[in-house]
């Protein structure tokens, strides 16, 4: 399986998360052929590939990024938005320009605003295990496992407010999973219900993808072991 990793406007945390899988990384690298990755290999040209992992939001004022992204779409059979910035904009949603070295760059959006995306993986960054699970499911063609991420590829907006909606529609039974999952600790459990501090929410999409009351994939009903 030929894999491209393209980094747009991001911190590289998602790629670091992938490498944080220790021995699993070697296993994965044996199964895939990394044909383009600005950080890890010295290849200038994007090649035809089976899967493109795109990390980072796309800046609409940056023609070069848009071209790269469109080129990846043409050359990849499957485009994966890797992490919060690529999927939903994440923390780049808060950019208001005036930053060096590109003070005019202001408009950072999820890549699905520019190209069609096949899978979106929330997370800032997504956990190493989650990235590995997804790569393995793609290799196996396990679309059932990938279902939630396929569905998310149609979302361009998310934030902790999704959790408030769960409470507001009497679906929240107070498990506390959203609270544990939040990377910025924006969610506190008060009297058995989540309270979201939206001013520190970075729109990573983790809390809502983790909530069993927003979605409980059918494959989980099968008890293993």
């Amino acid at each position, binding site marked *: 399986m030929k894999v491209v990793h393209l980094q747009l406007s991001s911190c590289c945390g998602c790629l670091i*998360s992938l490498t*944080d899988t220790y021995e699993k990384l070697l296993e994965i690298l044996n199964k895939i052929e990394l044909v383009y990755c600005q950080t890890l290999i010295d290849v200038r040209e994007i090649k035809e590939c089976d899967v493109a992992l795109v990390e980072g939001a796309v800046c609409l004022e940056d023609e070069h990024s848009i071209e790269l992204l469109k080129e990846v779409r043409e050359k990849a059979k499957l485009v994966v938005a890797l992490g919060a910035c690529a999927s939903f904009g994440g923390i780049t949603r808060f950019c208001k320009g005036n930053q060096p070295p590109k003070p005019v760059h202001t408009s950072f959006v999820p890549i699905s605003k520019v190209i069609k995306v096949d899978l979106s*993986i*929330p*997370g800032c960054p*997504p*956990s*190493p*295990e*989650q990235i590995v*699970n997804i790569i393995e499911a793609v290799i196996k063609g396990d679309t059932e*496992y990938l279902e*939630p991420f396929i569905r998310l590829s149609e979302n361009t907006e998310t934030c902790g407010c999704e959790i408030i909606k769960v409470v507001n*529609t*009497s*679906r*929240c*039974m*107070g*498990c*506390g*999973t959203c*609270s*544990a*999952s*939040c*990377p910025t600790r924006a969610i506190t*459990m008060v*009297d*058995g*219900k989540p309270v979201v501090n939206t001013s520190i929410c970075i729109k*990573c999409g*983790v*809390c809502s*993808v*983790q*909530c*069993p*009351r927003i979605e*409980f*994939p059918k*494959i*989980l*009903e099968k*008890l*293993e*072991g």
Partner: protein
Amino acid sequence: MVLGNYRKIVSARSTIPEVLKKSQDGGIVSTIFIYGLENRLLDGVIVSDNGGNFYTIPKVATTPEEVLEAAGTKYSISPNISVLKKAAREYGCEKIGVVGTPCQIRATRKLIKYPVGFRHIADKIALLIGIFCMENFPYEGLKIIVEELCGVKMDDVVKLDIGKGKFWVYTRWGETKAIKLKETHAFESSACHICTDYTAELADISTGSVGSPDGWSTVIIRTEKGEEIFNKMVEEGYFKIKPIEEVKPGLGLVEKLAKTKKDKNSKEIEHRKVLGII
């Protein structure tokens, strides 16, 4: 199958006197956790502490004493999973046991399979113990039941229980008050009304009082992992067990209640779909 997949079901009771003094029923949960900690099968367990007046506080317990402190049922929502990351990151636990209501066990199974926001956590979850659950109450709802309907100050309560169609309150003066369970329905958490899992179908081991005689628990062993630890504990004398077929009221009641919950709440789910809030 109304009880989910399982390997075997027995009626059991702990043999540890300290546990039985504090536990809700047969002390299954606390005994397994204490055994797990003492034998290093677990190095931390997530339980629900009584923060005073039965207010729930999810807690990471790392010693048998801490497990004992948290024994007994609190009939209000305890977000146990909220401290899961803390168990691994702050307490450094690598073999975590979790006790939870069926919904919490489901949440945990989801995060194991889809650990999007749980870096290096899934492989540290060693055992899931589920407790049977028909419904839960928001804390203020529980307080109304105890203080207004039963006429007991929260301060004076030593034990709360549901059984035989009644809600029971035991006071520190040795009194017992009970009201019909029907009277408590209005104070149930409405998120519970779309829940169809009574016996924690995705746990390694599930347990509850229903089906077994007073002081005993019905134990559903579901996975290989669950079976291994439970069998070892029986061999080493931590549990007395009886075949479920030989106890009263028996498995039939568990099945009946599990089915009632599924039927009633499936209807509610359909109703809410019509309302457009699901």
